[in-house]
């Protein structure tokens, strides 16, 4: 059996979540990788890849040509795997539609070549499902599989032509400028909730994030209230993180938020309400006003 893994390359490096997807794909046998856009050489350096298919003419996020291309080569593979990123979730279900396959999103555990575990109901239940499709199409959670190392391999690269996209056209992309680590890759994440009270107060998280080299996240209600941009959202409908340390500030811990962070190794909660559900999953809690606790925390670090 050979699996095909879709790798996303950003700033010349394969994204950590994609390296986790590679780890998952190696469970099925030989692995070919495919890279849309530039970056095939970074992919070729990862260990455990038989060959890299490079499609320099395609921007990753245009799902229509990407899915068309994947569909044209799919018959060579038993499994097609991507990380459960915005891009993976855009392209792979479309590919599944083209191939008349039922995709398996957000896999957190591989039982065998056709049996997978995935969370449902915001992670309040874990479903083990067996697929009867000839080609399995799955996205995997980066937080559930160790990322493959960045080097040690030297796979040959083959270049493929990009299909033409007439119905969809890329217009522009606006990326938030940040020197901080990516949310899904950070060792430490500090997140603010509605208790932050306004967007300006989110700045209070920054000096602590600086000291801990942490990514900054937000709850859905903080995003809803306009305190933080959506790409910072952690939870059922945002990003799924499992850092070594997660610090939840002014955040009640709605089930939708817990879905995105409860697999963190150590959880710290700072909240005025001692009954807040976040304390039920926190290893360490401080009941107190975040506007007093945060400056004290910054000083103590």
């Amino acid at each position, binding site marked *: 059996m050979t699996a095909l893994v879709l790798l996303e390359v950003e700033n010349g490096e394969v994204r950590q979540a994609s390296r986790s997807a590679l780890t998952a794909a190696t469970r099925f046998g030989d692995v070919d990788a495919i890279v849309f856009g530039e970056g095939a050489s970074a992919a070729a350096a990862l260990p455990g890849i038989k060959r890299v298919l490079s499609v320099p003419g395609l921007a990753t996020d245009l799902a229509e040509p990407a899915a068309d291309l994947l569909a044209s080569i799919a018959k060579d593979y038993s499994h097609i795997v991507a990380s459960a990123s915005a891009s993976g979730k855009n392209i792979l*279900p479309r590919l599944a*539609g083209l191939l008349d396959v039922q995709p398996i999103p957000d896999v957190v555990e591989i039982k065998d070549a056709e049996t997978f575990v995935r969370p449902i109901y*915001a992670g309040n239940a874990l479903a083990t499902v067996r697929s009867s499709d000839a080609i399995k199409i799955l996205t995997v959670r980066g937080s559930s599989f160790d990322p493959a190392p960045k080097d040690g391999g030297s796979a040959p690269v083959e270049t493929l032509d990009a299909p033409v996209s007439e119905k*969809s056209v890329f*217009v522009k992309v606006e*990326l938030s400028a940040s020197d901080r680590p990516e949310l899904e890759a950070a060792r*430490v994440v500090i997140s603010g909730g509605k208790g932050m009270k306004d967007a300006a107060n989110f700045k209070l998280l920054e000096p602590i994030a600086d000291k801990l080299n942490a990514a900054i996240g937000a709850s859905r209600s903080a995003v809803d209230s306009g305190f933080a941009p*959506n790409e910072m959202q952690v939870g059922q409908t945002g990003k799924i993180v499992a850092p070594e*340390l997660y610090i939840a500030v002014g955040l009640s811990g709605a089930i939708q938020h817990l879905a995105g962070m409860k697999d963190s190794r150590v959880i710290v909660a700072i909240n005025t309400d001692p009954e807040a559900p976040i304390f039920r999953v926190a290893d*360490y809690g401080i009941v107190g006003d975040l506007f007093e606790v945060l400056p004290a925390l910054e000083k103590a670090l």
Partner: protein
Amino acid sequence: MKILVPVKRVVDYNVKVRVAADGSGVETQGLKMSLNPFDEIAVEEAIRLREKGVATEVVVVTIGVQAAQDILRTSMAMGADRAILVKTDDTLEPRAVANALKAIVEREQPGLVCMGKQAIDDDMNATGQILAAKLGWPQGTFASAVSVADGRIEVSREIDGGTEVVSLALPAVVTADLRLNEPRYASLPNIMKARKKPLETLEAADLGVDLASRLTVVSVAEPAERKEGIKLGSAAELVEKLKTEAKVI
């Protein structure tokens, strides 16, 4: 232009579900059911496009049990013009739902399908993409803004590092993300009016499409519970614990 809005009836987002004791699934009996929140956003966006004069009619459709007509009435109370219930007692996977929706699209000939990006029960985030593929239509997933002009729709999409904008030729499928809009509340007069709006019922089996499942649920389990930790008195104490006990900083 007609807009078709597929919607789903799900366990209300405020309700915490329990796994059935025999591990066969999740207990949903007697729980409060609601219109899937992302679908509510999609209904709102379709109504706004009609109010702007971009669309002429908003049709909502659901594939589900007889009781799912309540979410169709909710959608019509918000402002949708009419509704279709495709009745089935089976739990359908996104692939099967997309097959049923494709049949409805072929019947209704909408210029746009606008739907939620994911249902909060199975968290699949797949039906819109599968439907778009099966129709051969372009897709604008995870939309945070849309604008229609000259036979195209421009969609701002939520991506991992920010926002991406794509331009799609209509007809197209758009899936709604959280920030697309804030859905309106239905007023009492509109709730009354919605009772008189047309609701057509079809049998899913009569569509003549493949509704089979490709996934077998082997088991459903509770996730591992975390142990409740300890409360500390100060930030200094916290830093001490993180350094010496958890050894994480």
